């Protein structure tokens, strides 16, 4: 292991960055998808349905490859229109991979958020409107917080999916932990050691995320506990 620790550290940091960025995108995709599915607009519903069908029905590693190479081919073609000497243009693997896994997990989150929005008690919404709160105020102060509590348990699963999906991005050349382990293996000839380290670091990450989910749930359910 000597000599590889700093590589693992940087790779782990990359994984953490991918996780945080993809989490933000995942929430945005999931909320937009749920809003579209619950809207009365038929085109919006159709787009959201196509989105969830496609991204829940395709292997994730394929989505990573398609998004990276698809965008690279397009960018290169467009770039050549302006400068024929260009040979290859791509979106950095970091962003292509981050968006790809966020799209996939966001498709699952769409269904989670949709179900949770449907679980918000209509009585609260009615009371808010009767008090004169606007539709937007009702959404921000009543619907979202009540939805959030219901969405949290499955949302914890989605976060764990994101953590593990970061490993897929090595396939498009992001220097994350699997990438480092592969390099280390070829120099040291110790594949098991090099890969078990990756496993342990992932386990540490997912334990952290699980703990975070539990803390969030504890906070979201504070109103259901007996007063202290």
């Amino acid at each position, binding site marked *: 292991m000597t000599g590889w620790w700093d590589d693992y550290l940087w790779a782990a940091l990359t994984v953490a960055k991918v996780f945080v960025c993809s989490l933000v995108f995942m929430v945005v995709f999931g909320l937009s998808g749920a809003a579209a599915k619950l809207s009365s607009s038929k085109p919006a519903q159709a787009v959201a349905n196509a989105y969830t069908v496609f991204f829940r029905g395709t292997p994730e590693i394929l989505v990573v490859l398609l998004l990276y190479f698809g965008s690279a081919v397009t960018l290169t073609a467009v770039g050549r229109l302006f400068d024929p000497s260009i040979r290859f243009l791509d979106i950095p693997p970091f962003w292509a991979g981050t968006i790809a896994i966020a799209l996939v997990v966001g498709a699952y989150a769409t269904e989670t958020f949709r179900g949770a929005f449907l679980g918000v008690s209509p*009585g609260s919404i009615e009371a808010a409107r009767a008090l004169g709160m606007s539709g937007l105020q009702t959404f921000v102060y009543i619907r979202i917080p009540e939805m959030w509590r219901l969405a949290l348990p499955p949302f914890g699963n989605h976060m764990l999916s994101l953590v593990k999906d970061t490993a897929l991005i090595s396939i498009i050349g992001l220097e994350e932990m699997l990438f480092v382990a592969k390099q280390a293996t070829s120099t040291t000839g110790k594949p098991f050691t090099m890969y078990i380290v990756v496993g342990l670091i992932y386990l540490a990450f997912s334990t952290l995320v699980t703990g975070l989910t539990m803390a969030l749930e504890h906070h979201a359910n504070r109103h259901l506990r007996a007063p202290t």
Partner: protein
Amino acid sequence: MSTQTSPIIRLVSVGKRFGDFEALVDVDLEVRPGERIVICGPSGSGKSTLIRCINRMEKHTSGTIVVNGHELTDDLRDIDAVRREIGMVFQSFNLFPHMTVLRNLTIAQRLVRKTPKAEAEAVAMHFLERVRIPEQAAKYPAQLSGGQQQRVAIARALCMKPRIMLFDEPTSALDPEMISEVLEVMVDLAGDGMTMVCVTHEMGFARSVADRVIFMDRGRLVEQADPETFFTRPQNERTALFLRQILRH
């Protein structure tokens, strides 16, 4: 009944359809400021629909509703103006479960009235004291009894300083021993001259507080009279039958 004051609520031949079902048929009703009205009637008679039309929780499908000079149309400004004048209390309390009692009472003041935080909290505590549960301010709704929750709901509506209070079966979801604590608060409110329209089957409340009792059946106002006349000499056969049924126990 005096006729000098103009009505604060006026319904002229109001109808409401849900698809093929006629929930309200040709309803005429005038409520004067300070008047206390009790509406009763069998399940499905349209009494809840009627008061829900007054603050546009339901949209009436024909006729005219004017509240405090604002006609209820699709114009959102008029609806907002009307909702600012009307407090509503629901059968199932409808408190915001994720907020403390105090925040339940301040949130609309702050968002709708733009009241500063300290002032909103002072108003909230004032009304919590009026409904006799100031010590519950820091708790969450699920930590209170049904009667306490309904009193919080009444206080929440009062915080908006409404001119009219609508009560939609406020005691129907309560255990028997909690009904009186809610009715006491409502009697208090009536004593202050609040305009009240209450859908309720609490006939004791109707007798002691109401200026007028209205009986509804199948979407129509069948009979209205002062409580004395209403309970002792109902004019309509259906009213008499209904009263026999609910007063039997």
